[in-house]
């Protein structure tokens, strides 16, 4: 019986009793501290229920409230009694009523016997660790906390403000450096008795009585004075959630706990029957291994991550981030092509052949939602109603990208489309936007409509495109944007197409082996000149050579190709 257990109990006494029997059966003396808030009759019944156990004692009771000195006083009382009455105890383990041993107690006894001089207590200076969540760190030790955080919150806060305003500081007793850590420790008799029998103890006690949450700093600080070998970790597995509250373990954590190889875990839900039945009755096969909380750490930090940052690009009933707090507006990269379908007759099928991707048409056309294959619905049950889409264009886009995670989406866009999404596209780092400016003029050129109409529409489209480009080039734009004028693009279309394909899948570069069929542009320069002559200057196309080039009869024109 090298190991003695000090146990602080305040609720779920039946579960505590079960665990005490478990410790006791393995030969560990247990000294129990029951919170004075537990009423007399309950306490008596509890004492009675454990009366048959040898080496189980109850210590003097203190009133224990979260974050107050009472918890330290309780730990002191229990360990003093343990050291005094059980001289063969070499290590004292401080546990709570909600702690559950996960491995046979003999394992723990062997482990400690092999490390007779080691104190297992998490102990770090406040300056070095960002553990405290929404609380005070350094100020725990320099301010005074006479009011209860739970019951007298108003006074607590006012008094903290007051001390800050007057720059009041308490003097930290000579010789100690405040440390913090988990309140559940396992100390050697030598260290613990040195702390408890220190002639300066009244000084320390007086100081820590008004430190905030002293149960996380009293032993953690004083152990540094006496211990020869501090192993700064707790043998008790406990996890904290994003608010700094301890995670509670339930039945569905059974496998995780089993694989953690930790000696003791907390907090266990009192009604987790499966956990209590499993760990208190059957032997865990993992004998002699080191505690290995790595896996359980990963699972729990993932949960914290999910709660705090969430999944990028997901908008749903329990995640609706404010603008700027999305942690990623969309779920995955996607490509936007502007002006390509105007310039090439078969751009969409060509793109589908040459890249591993879904190719949509103009998703934001004013009168249509052109899903791939012009389907009426698409992934996630999105429907092709343009009014529904425009009701919330942002969410239409984010839904589409979320619903198709795992495949790359491409869609066409242009000044003829509904422009509601412009700002979002420009702001989204996932957007890869390739623009051929001025390509909107090609359908007008081919339309053979009344020239006055054409002129009016060209002016309108040019204005819309100019606004769109201004957004893409704005300082706040985060999209990956490539812009060619129509003239530039037509000069070397294959290189430009190759660049856009490379942008889409940088890992697997693919050579362009065939080019899409370009619209016959013979006479286009004259068309632009006609617009100019009418007083409407189409500048978006770049410098299109105004004199018509040599005219090839259509059909004999060979496809352009790239020599690499």
């Amino acid at each position, binding site marked *: 019986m090298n190991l003695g257990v000090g146990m602080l109990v305040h609720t779920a006494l039946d579960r505590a009793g079960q665990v005490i029997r478990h410790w006791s059966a393995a030969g560990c003396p247990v000294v129990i501290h029951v919170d004075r808030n537990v009423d007399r009759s309950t306490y008596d019944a509890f004492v009675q229920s454990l009366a048959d156990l040898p080496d189980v004692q109850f210590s003097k009771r203190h009133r224990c409230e979260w974050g107050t000195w009472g918890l330290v006083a309780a730990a002191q009382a229990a360990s003093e009694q343990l050291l005094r009455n059980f001289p063969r105890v070499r290590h004292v383990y401080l546990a709570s009523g909600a702690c559950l041993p996960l491995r046979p107690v003999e394992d723990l006894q062997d482990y400690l016997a092999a490390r007779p001089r080691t104190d297992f207590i998490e102990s770090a200076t406040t300056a070095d660790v960002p553990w405290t969540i929404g609380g005070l760190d350094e100020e725990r030790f320099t301010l005074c906390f006479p009011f209860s955080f739970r019951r007298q919150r108003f006074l607590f806060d006012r008094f903290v403000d007051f001390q800050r305003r007057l720059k009041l500081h308490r003097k930290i007793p000579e010789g100690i450096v405040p440390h913090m850590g988990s309140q559940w420790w396992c100390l050697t008799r030598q260290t613990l008795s040195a702390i408890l029998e220190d002639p300066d103890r009244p000084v320390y006690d007086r100081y820590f009585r008004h430190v905030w949450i002293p149960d996380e700093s009293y032993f953690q600080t004083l152990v540094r004075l006496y211990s020869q070998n501090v192993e700064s970790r707790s043998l008790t597995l406990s996890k904290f959630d994003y608010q700094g509250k301890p995670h509670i373990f339930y039945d569905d954590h059974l496998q995780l706990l089993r694989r953690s190889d930790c000696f003791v875990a907390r907090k266990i839900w009192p009604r987790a029957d499966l956990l209590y039945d499993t760990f208190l009755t059957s032997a865990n096969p993992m004998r002699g291994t080191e505690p290995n909380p790595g896996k359980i750490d990963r699972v729990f930090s993932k949960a914290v991550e*999910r*709660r*705090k940052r969430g999944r990028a690009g997901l908008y749903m009933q329990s995640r609706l981030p404010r603008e700027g707090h999305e942690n990623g507006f969309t779920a995955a990269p996607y490509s936007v092509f502007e002006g390509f379908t105007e310039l090439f007759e078969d751009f969409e099928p060509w793109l589908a052949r040459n890249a591993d991707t879904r190719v949509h048409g103009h998703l934001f056309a004013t009168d249509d939602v052109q899903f791939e294959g012009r389907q009426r*619905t698409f992934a996630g*049950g999105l429907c092709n109603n343009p009014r529904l889409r425009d009701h919330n264009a942002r969410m239409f886009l984010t839904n589409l990208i979320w619903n198709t995670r795992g495949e790359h989406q491409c869609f066409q866009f242009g000044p003829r489309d509904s422009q509601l999404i412009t700002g979002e596209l420009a702001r989204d780092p996932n957007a890869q936007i390739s623009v051929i400016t001025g390509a909107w003029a090609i359908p007008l050129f081919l339309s053979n409509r009344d020239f006055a109409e054409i002129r009016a529409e060209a002016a309108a489209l040019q204005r819309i495109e100019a606004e769109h480009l201004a957004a893409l080039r704005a300082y706040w734009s985060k999209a990956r944007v490539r812009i060619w004028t129509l003239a530039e693009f037509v000069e070397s279309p294959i290189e430009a197409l190759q660049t856009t394909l490379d942008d889409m899948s940088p890992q697997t570069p693919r050579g362009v082996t065939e080019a899409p069929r370009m619209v016959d542009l013979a006479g286009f320069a004259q068309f632009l000149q006609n617009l100019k002559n009418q007083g409407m200057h189409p500048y978006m196309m770049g410098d299109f050579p105004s004199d018509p080039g040599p005219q090839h009869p259509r059909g004999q024109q060979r496809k352009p190709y790239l020599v690499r």
Partner: protein
Amino acid sequence: MLLPRGLNLVYDEWGGEKASGVLLHAKFLDVFTHKAREELQRGQHYANSHEYKAYAEELAEHPELWCTWSEKYINWRQLEILGLMSKGNWA
């Protein structure tokens, strides 16, 4: 008992996810076509049962809600992966 106000704040506004679930509405069950017709006969719903009229009409033409993009239900983890619900802080 007065419940804490925080329980009414069901979604997170700062990017995180709160725990949430999914309810299966009886209107998505295959017996609903039958039910809609029955309710039309009973005529016990508000506004002259106009909602049920719409259901019955639409379901007579398209009795199946299943489409290419529908997914077969497997388990709650699937719903979580699809983003229809979230474990939130649950580990």
